[in-house]
């Protein structure tokens, strides 16, 4: 019994940390642009597939993560500049444009890599079993948690300690004021968008052995990410960091009973939280 609980806890924590990371990207875009960014999902998938292609080419997992993040970030910037920047401040059109981007990119991925499941890159030196006391744990999951925490910490340092982070926080607070200081908030938005996309891409590569690798993997994650973002409070980074592991753990425990049920439980949880605390845990706060 203890074994089962620890295993589920670790697997829930793994997906939770990765969910948090993707959700931070969505939360930031929402806070800055007031656009519900659905195109984050296929960018996650794209990162995973780029990682796979790189891994097949050169066999180095770290280069795969780097390249996955880089290309995902680049695609994010292109999306932002070409399409999403045209519909800022109109939530309906923003929703529609990102929805179209999601559909288009997912279909493009399906056309390039085929609709089926792919074997995710799994470096042998990470695929071991380690023992926590007497309980066997996959070392890859521990690595994923660690990597997720490192990226999250880096993100936090960037937002909280650097000058650019200061500008990002100021833009979240009052875009017009930032513009009045002579700083182009538009380029801040592009940077944040690119950064969020790059993190989603890296998560895609790290997460592909855990979530599987198929064209709709991003769409499945997206729905959970939204729950995370809404629970944590739209636009709140702290909220996303807290809500991610909660959702991950709840999902992994209900999945023990029935796979279909976990989605239902997650959404019932979200509905309850929305009714009790409509702004989420940390609504309107960074």
């Amino acid at each position, binding site marked *: 019994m203890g074994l089962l609980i620890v295993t589920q806890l670790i697997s829930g924590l793994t997906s939770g940390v990765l969910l948090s990371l993707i959700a931070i990207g969505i939360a930031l875009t929402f806070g800055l642009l007031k656009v519900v960014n659905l195109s984050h999902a296929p960018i996650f998938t794209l990162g995973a597939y780029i990682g796979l292609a790189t891994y097949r080419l050169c066999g180095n997992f770290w280069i795969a993560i780097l390249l996955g993040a880089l290309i995902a970030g680049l695609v994010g910037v292109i999306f932002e500049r070409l399409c999403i920047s045209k519909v800022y401040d109109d939530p309906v059109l923003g929703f529609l444009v990102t929805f*179209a981007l999601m*559909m288009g990119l997912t279909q493009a991925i*399906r056309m390039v890599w085929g609709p089926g499941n792919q074997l995710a890159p799994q470096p042998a030196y990470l695929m071991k079993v380690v023992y926590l006391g007497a309980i066997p744990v996959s070392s890859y999951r521990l690595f994923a948690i660690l990597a997720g925490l490192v990226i999250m910490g880096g993100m936090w340092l960037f937002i909280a300690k650097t000058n650019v982070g200061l500008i990002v926080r100021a833009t979240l607070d009052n875009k017009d004021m930032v513009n009045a200081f002579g700083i182009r908030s538009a380029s801040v938005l592009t940077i944040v968008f690119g950064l969020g996309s790059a993190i989603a891409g890296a998560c895609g590569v790290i997460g592909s052995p855990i979530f599987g690798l198929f064209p709709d993997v991003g769409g499945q994650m997206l729905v959970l990410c939204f729950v995370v973002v809404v629970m944590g409070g739209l636009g709140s980074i702290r909220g996303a960091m807290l809500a991610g592991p909660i959702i991950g753990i709840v999902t992994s425990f209900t999945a023990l009973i029935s796979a279909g049920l976990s*989605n239902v439980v997650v959404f019932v949880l979200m509905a309850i939280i929305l009714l009790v605390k409509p702004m989420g845990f940390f609504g309107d706060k960074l």
Partner: protein
Amino acid sequence: MAGETAGAAQLREVETPPVAEGPLFRRPSRIRYIVGYAILACLFLVLPFHTAYDTLVEDIIVWSLFAIGFNLAFGFTGMVSLGHGVFFGVAAFTTGILAMFWTPSVITIPIGVAVGTLTAFCVGYLSLKRARVDVHKALRIAYLVLISIAASYITMYIFLNPLAKYSGGDMGLLGLVDYPLRLTSHLQLDLKAHNQTYIVVGVVALLAIALLQRIANSPAGLVMRSIRENEIRVGFLGYNTFRFKLLVYTLSGFVASLAGCLYLLRSGFISVDCFEFSFTSELVVICLLGGRNTFFGPMVGTIIFMILKDVISAYTNSWALVLAIVLILSVFYLPAGLGPTFASLPARLLKACKKA
């Protein structure tokens, strides 16, 4: 004067772009009404009997009704919902399951519509209750979208797991065509007899569309559009916007349920695909393509969309990619949709004729 403008700026919601539109209250002349509905009646009741593409025409009829009802919530009132497929599916499944496992009678259709409408009421209540005017507009849309996605997952689970024995699970509800729906002891609606279903579908859709147009042209329709433009001000005028939005949402859920039942009658088949929110997203594309600010825009959108889908699916598998490109292009270059262009076509033709 300066004080007035400052006050007005406070009243104005920040994210309300001006919508290009004609006069809000345009009463069409009686001749236009009669001619328009005569053409519609021909399309709905005569065309299916005289074409080889009868399934396409029937699909266009059902989806026109579906899209026009959806547009009351989406285009008129400004509520983005991805949950209408749920109401469509719940109504169709309820009707089908009751007809197959309880009693093959026409009475199952109103029951199905009622269950679908009730679902719409519940989903609408949950997603609108907290989305008050003091909540940011983007957040309100996020609530609506998320709770409708939640509804789509929950109904999908219900129909795939506990009800799989009745709903047919992944396969969908098959075999309804073998059950003729009884009306009286002598009269029955045979789903295999296409001329019967054509007439039922055509008449019901026509009546429903006429009723919806009456509602859209009434003062209530004006309140809907006012809510889209500026909900706070409508509240100041004394309207309870929450109840009004819930009413519109339920009404459009009712139309979706009706369309679901008509679809079931037309095809004798329904699958759980309609619960997926990508199903409803096609409606969003249809409304945008046709013009979400006009009543008949969604119908123009449906006709274009369905024919495009039929033609393109024959050549390529990547229908979703084409759809995405069409959607982005229509957002950027055709924000008013194709509906207004088509609506002004007769007038422009007339003008051209007069000149010549």
